[in-house]
C-alpha cells in the first residue's frame, strides 16, 4: 500500500490534516484505532469559547472543516463578550456529541483521495532521516512520503481514578503502547501531561428548578463564512448553572488524600493544565472562595448525559457520588460516567519547525495534543496547518507560516515552538499582542487569500469573498463621501448626538460613540450586507487603536525580518549566558524576533547574538 500522506489519529487534528492533504490532491490515509470514534469529543460538548471561537473562524477562512461541521451540529450558540469591544468577541457553541462526529465522518468518507483504516501505529519508518511509512501493531507496513502524527491523549495513556491506574485511552479505547517509546528511540524528547474530565449525570435525575437557565443568543450565528444556518434560534438547547456548596468543599478536603492527584497515586508525573484545574485544585488553592461555578451542559439530543463542567476530579467513585449529591439540584443525581484523569505522552514542541514538521525527521509532522496543547480548536488548527504544510512540502513549495499579527493560529504555533510548554497549552486572548487585529469578524479578510492559494478554498467561495472585500471598500468610500450638514440636524437630534455646525462625513459621524451604523443607512445610495457594514463600523470607530497595533506590528517586523542562519554556532559566542545558550540551541529560532520571545534569553543575549550576526556578514 502506498500513500503520499498518512495521518495517524482521527481526532480533531487528524480530521483537519487528512482533509487538507486530500483536498490539496495528495493521496491520504487516515489511520485510527476506532472508526466509530472519529472526531470524538471526549471532554466538554462545546466548540469555541474566548479566542478558541476566533480560531474556528480562522480554520474556516483557510478552508478547514471544523466551523462548517460545528454549524451542522449546534445545540446552542452565543457570542461571548458581546458587550465588550469587537476585538474580544468570540463564538461559543454547544455541539451535539453524536451529530458532530457523524457529520465529520461523512465529510471524510465523501472526500476524494482519502481512505480510512482502522489500526494502531507502532512505529514511524524512516529512510535516511526521512519518512518512508508506518509500521502497524499487527505487523503490516504502509508506505508514504509524509506522516502527520495526531495521537491526542493516546500515547501510553493511563486512566486515573482514585487510587487506580489503568493503561487505557478515553472511555475505554485502546491506547497506543509503542509509538511514543519508538519516537523516544529516534531522539524525540517526550513530556508526560495529564488532563481530566468531569462526571456525566443522567438528565432525568437532575432538579433543574434549583439551577439557573443559560440560553443561547436570540440572534443567529455561524462559525463558517458560508453563513449557512442549520439550527432554529428559538429552539436551542439550554445549559444550566449551579454552584458548589460548603458541604462539597468539606467532602473534598476530608478526602483529599484519596484523589489520584493528591496522593491517591504516588507516581504521577503528568502535568495538568493550569487553565482547567480539577475541582480539588480549585478548592485547595482558593480556600477563601465560598463557591465555585458549575455548568450543566447537555451532550446530545440522542442520549441522556449531562456534562458537569467545572467539576473534573480524580476522586474514587464513592467520593464522587457524595460530591455530586452535595450540589444544588443534584441531590438525587445519577452518575452515568465517573470523572477521570488521563495521563499521556506528548513531545516537546520546541522540536518542531514553524511548519509543524519535526526538526529530527524530514516529512514527519505533528499536530494537536501530541504537541502539548489542550482543546479541540487548538488541535484542529494545528492539524490544518500540518496538513497544509505537508501538502506544500510534497509540492516543493514554501510552507505557510502565519504570523502573530495575522492569526491566533500563528500566535499558538509560535508560542509552542518558541516558548515550549509547561502544562497543556490553552489559547487565550491575552496571549496575543495584536488582539484588535485578530478579530472574529475579519478572519476571512486576514486568511482567505492563503486558503485559496493553497487550494482549500474553492474559486466560487473566493470570488464571493473578493466581492465582499470590494463592497467593504465601496461602503467605506461612500461613508466618507456623503456629508451631512446642519439641515440634517433634526434627525441627528433624534439620535441624541451633538448637532452640526458644518458639513461632516458619515464616516466621521460614525466615529461618535452614540452613533450606530444603522442610524446612517438612510443616507446611503447603495445597500450593503450586515457584515460589510460591520467592517465599516469597526474601521471608523476603532481606527486609532487599530493603527496603534499596526504600528507596533511594523516595529516588531524589523526583528522578525532578521534571519538567523541555520548554521549559527551558539557555542562560539562565549558571552551568552549559559541558560540563553541552552535555550537558543534547543529552540533554534529562525529570526531575531523569535529569539526575543524565548524565555530565559535576555536583551544582553539578543544583543550579543545580533552583533555576532552583523559581524558574520
Amino acid at each position: 500500500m502506498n500513500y503520499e500522506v498518512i495521518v495517524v489519529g482521527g481526532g480533531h487534528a487528524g480530521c483537519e490534516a487528512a482533509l487538507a492533504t486530500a483536498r490539496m490532491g495528495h493521496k491520504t490515509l487516515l489511520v485510527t484505532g476506532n472508526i466509530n470514534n472519529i472526531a470524538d469529543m471526549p471532554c466538554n460538548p462545546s466548540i469555541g469559547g474566548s479566542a478558541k471561537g476566533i480560531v474556528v473562524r480562522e480554520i474556516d477562512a483557510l478552508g478547514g472543516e471544523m466551523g462548517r461541521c460545528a454549524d451542522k451540529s449546534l445545540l446552542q450558540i452565543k457570542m461571548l463578550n458581546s458587550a465588550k469591544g469587537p476585538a474580544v468577541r468570540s463564538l461559543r457553541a454547544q455541539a451535539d456529541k453524536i451529530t458532530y462526529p457523524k457529520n465529520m465522518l461523512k465529510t471524510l468518507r465523501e472526500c476524494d483521495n482519502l481512505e480510512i483504516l482502522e489500526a494502531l501505529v507502532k512505529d514511524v519508518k524512516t529512510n535516511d532521516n526521512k519518512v518512508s511509512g508506518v509500521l502497524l501493531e499487527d505487523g503490516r507496513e504502509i508506505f508514504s512520503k509524509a506522516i502527520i502524527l495526531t495521537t491526542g491523549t493516546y500515547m501510553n495513556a493511563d486512566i486515573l481514578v482514585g487510587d487506580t491506574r489503568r493503561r487505557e485511552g478515553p472511555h475505554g479505547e485502546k491506547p497506543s503502547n509503542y509509538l511514543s517509546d519508538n519516537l523516544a528511540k529516534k531522539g524525540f524528547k517526550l513530556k508526560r501531561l495529564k488532563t481530566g474530565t468531569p462526571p456525566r449525570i443522567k438528565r432525568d435525575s437532575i432538579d433543574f428548578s434549583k439551577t439557573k437557565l443559560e440560553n443561547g443568543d436570540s440572534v443567529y450565528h455561524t462559525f463558517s463564512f458560508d453563513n449557512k444556518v442549520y439550527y432554529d434560534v428559538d429552539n436551542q438547547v439550554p445549559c444550566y448553572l449551579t454552584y458548589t456548596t460548603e458541604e462539597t468543599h468539606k467532602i473534598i478536603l476530608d478526602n483529599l488524600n484519596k484523589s489520584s492527584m493528591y496522593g491517591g497515586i504516588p507516581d504521577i508525573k503528568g502535568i495538568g493544565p493550569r487553565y482547567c484545574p480539577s475541582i480539588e485544585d480549585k478548592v485547595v488553592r482558593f480556600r477563601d472562595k465560598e463557591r465555585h461555578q458549575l455548568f450543566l451542559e447537555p451532550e446530545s439530543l440522542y442520549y441522556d448525559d449531562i456534562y458537569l463542567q467545572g467539576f473534573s476530579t480524580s476522586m474514587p467513585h464513592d467520593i464522587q457520588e457524595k460530591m455530586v449529591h452535595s450540589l444544588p439540584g443534584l441531590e438525587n443525581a445519577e452518575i452515568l460516567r465517573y470523572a477521570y484523569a488521563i495521563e499521556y505522552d506528548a513531545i516537546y514542541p520546541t522540536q518542531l519547525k514553524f511548519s509543524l514538521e519535526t526538526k529530527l525527521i524530514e516529512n514527519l509532522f505533528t499536530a494537536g495534543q501530541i504537541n502539548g496543547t489542550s482543546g479541540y480548536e487548538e488541535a484542529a488548527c494545528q492539524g490544518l496547518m500540518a496538513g497544509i504544510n505537508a501538502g506544500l512540502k510534497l509540492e516543493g513549495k514554501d510552507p505557510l507560516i502565519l504570523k502573530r499579527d495575522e492569526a491566533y493560529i500563528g500566535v499558538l504555533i509560535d508560542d509552542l515552538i518558541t516558548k515550549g510548554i509547561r502544562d497543556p497549552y490553552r489559547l487565550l486572548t491575552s496571549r496575543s499582542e495584536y488582539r484588535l487585529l485578530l478579530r472574529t469578524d475579519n478572519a476571512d479578510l486576514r486568511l482567505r487569500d492563503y486558503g485559496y492559494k493553497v487550494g482549500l478554498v474553492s474559486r466560487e467561495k473566493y470570488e464571493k469573498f473578493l466581492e465582499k472585500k470590494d463592497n467593504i471598500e465601496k461602503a467605506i468610500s461612500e461613508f466618507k463621501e456623503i456629508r451631512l450638514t446642519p439641515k440634517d440636524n433634526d434627525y441627528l437630534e433624534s439620535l441624541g448626538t451633538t448637532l452640526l455646525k458644518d458639513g461632516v462625513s458619515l464616516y466621521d459621524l460614525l466615529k461618535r460613540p452614540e452613533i450606530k451604523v444603522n442610524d446612517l443607512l438612510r443616507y446611503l445610495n447603495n445597500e450593503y450586507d450586515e457584515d460589510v457594514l460591520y467592517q465599516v463600523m469597526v474601521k471608523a470607530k476603532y481606527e486609532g487603536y487599530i493603527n496603534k497595533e499596526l504600528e507596533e506590528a511594523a516595529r516588531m517586523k524589523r526583528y522578525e525580518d532578521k534571519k538567523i542562519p541555520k548554521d549559527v554556532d551558539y557555542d562560539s559566542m562565549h558571552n551568552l549566558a549559559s541558560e540563553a545558550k541552552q535555550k537558543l540551541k534547543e529552540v533554534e529560532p529562525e529570526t531575531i524576533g523569535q529569539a526575543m520571545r524565548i524565555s530565559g534569553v535576555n536583551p544582553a543575549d539578543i544583543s550579543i547574538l545580533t552583533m555576532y550576526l552583523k559581524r558574520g556578514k
Partner: protein
Amino acid sequence: MDDTIAAISTAQGVGAISIIRVSGPKAFEIVSKIFSNKKFLEAPSHTIHYGYIVDNGKKIDEVLVSKMNGPKTFTCEDVAEINAHGGITTTNEILELVLVNGARLAEPGEFTKRAFLNGRIDLTEAEGIMDLINSKTDKAREMALNQVSGEVSNLIRDLRNDLAGIISNIEVNIDYPEYEDTPVMTNNKVKNSLNSLEKKINNILEKSNEGEIIKNGIKTVIAGKPNVGKSSLLNRLLGEDRAIVTDVQGTTRDSIEASLVIDNIVLNLIDTAGIRDTSDTVESIGVSKSLSLIDQADLVLFVLNYNEEMTADERMILEKIRDKNHIIIVNKTDLEKKLDTSELDNPIYISIKDDKNIDEIKDRIKELFNLEKIETGDLTYLTSARSKAILRQVLDSVSDVREGIDNYPIDIVEIDLKKIWNLLGDIIGENYSEELLDELFSRFCVGK
C-alpha cells in the same frame, strides 16, 4: 545610522575641560554652523582648530575643535570634538546648540554601538565589553536604574504592580466571561484608579526633576546684608573645593556666573557680581534686588551676622525664603553674640575666620535635596533626557486612556494601559520587548 549624533563625552561637573562629541555624516557641517573658525570645513583630517562657539553672533566659549574624517575614528564616521572649558551650563549650552543645528542626542552607549556596527571594534573587543557588562551586571543595571533614583524605581515598580492588577483583571474577564463570580473590572473602576495613577506618575516626574537638579545644577543665591561674609563664604567654598568657575559674562541664562562643585553636586550661583566684587558693590545688592534673585533660586543661602541684631530687611527676607529651600547661616560666631537666634529655623553656626562648621553647609544641602540616596557619579545629562522622554510618553498614554474611557469598551482602553505598563518597564529596565540592542548599550556611559 544616517543621522548625526552628539553628546557630552566627559564626566560632568568635574575636570577642567569638557568634550562634546559629534559623530555622523553631518558632523562637520553642524559644527561649522556654530564655530567661528571658517577654515574648519575645508581643513584636512585629524587636525585641531582654535576659535569660538557662537550663537547668533554671541560668543559662548573659546574652544579647540578637532576634526577627524571617517573611517579612521572611533565610530568610523566623521567626528568633530569640541573641547570646551568645562562648566555644566556652558557645556550643556554648546551641546544644545549642536542639537538645534541638526544633530540628535546620542542614546547611552550609542558611540560604542556605532563603533561596533561599523566594524571599528572587532568581536574580541566587543566580547571584552560584554565581559565587562557581564561581570558588572548589577552595576550596569544600576546605571540604567540611575536614570531615576532608587526611590523612583520603587515607585515605578509599585505602579506597574497596580497596573498589572487591573490588566489581569480585564483579561480574566475577557477570557472567562462565563464566570460570574469573578470581579468585573469596569471603566468606572479604571477611572478611579486613573487619578491615583496620574498622581503617582506626576510624583515620579517630580522625583525625576530632583535628579535633574543634580545633573543640571542647583540655582543658588547667597543672600545677606553687606559685610555679613557672603564673599568670604563664596571664596572659602571656592578655595577649598575643586571648583570650576566659568566667567563668560552675560552669555548664560539665568545670569549664572559661577558654578561650584561640592562632592559632585553643582551649585550654580546666580548673579554673584555683588558678592565677588568686594570693592564697591557691597551696597549694590539692595533688598529689592535680593528678593527678585530669591524668586529665581532653587536654594537660598541666607547669611546673618552673629554679632549684630536682626534688621527689618533681614526679617523680610526670612519671611520670603520660608517656603523655599534655604539654609540660614549665622557667621562670625567668633565674636560676641548679639543676634536673637531663638526664632531661627535650624541655623548653622559658622565662623569663616576660624574655619568652623563650613562642612555642615554641604551636608545640609545634600539633605535638603535628598541627595544622599542618589548616586551622582554615573548620572549624565543624556540618561535623564531619555527617561524623561519616556515619562512624557507615559503621560500621553494616560491622557489617551482618559480620552478613551468614556467612549470605548474596557478591552480597548486596556491597549493603552498595557502601553503604560511597557513604557514604565522601559525606564526601570524590566521590559525586554523594546529595542534590545539599544537597551544593552544604554548600560554604557555615553562617549566611551
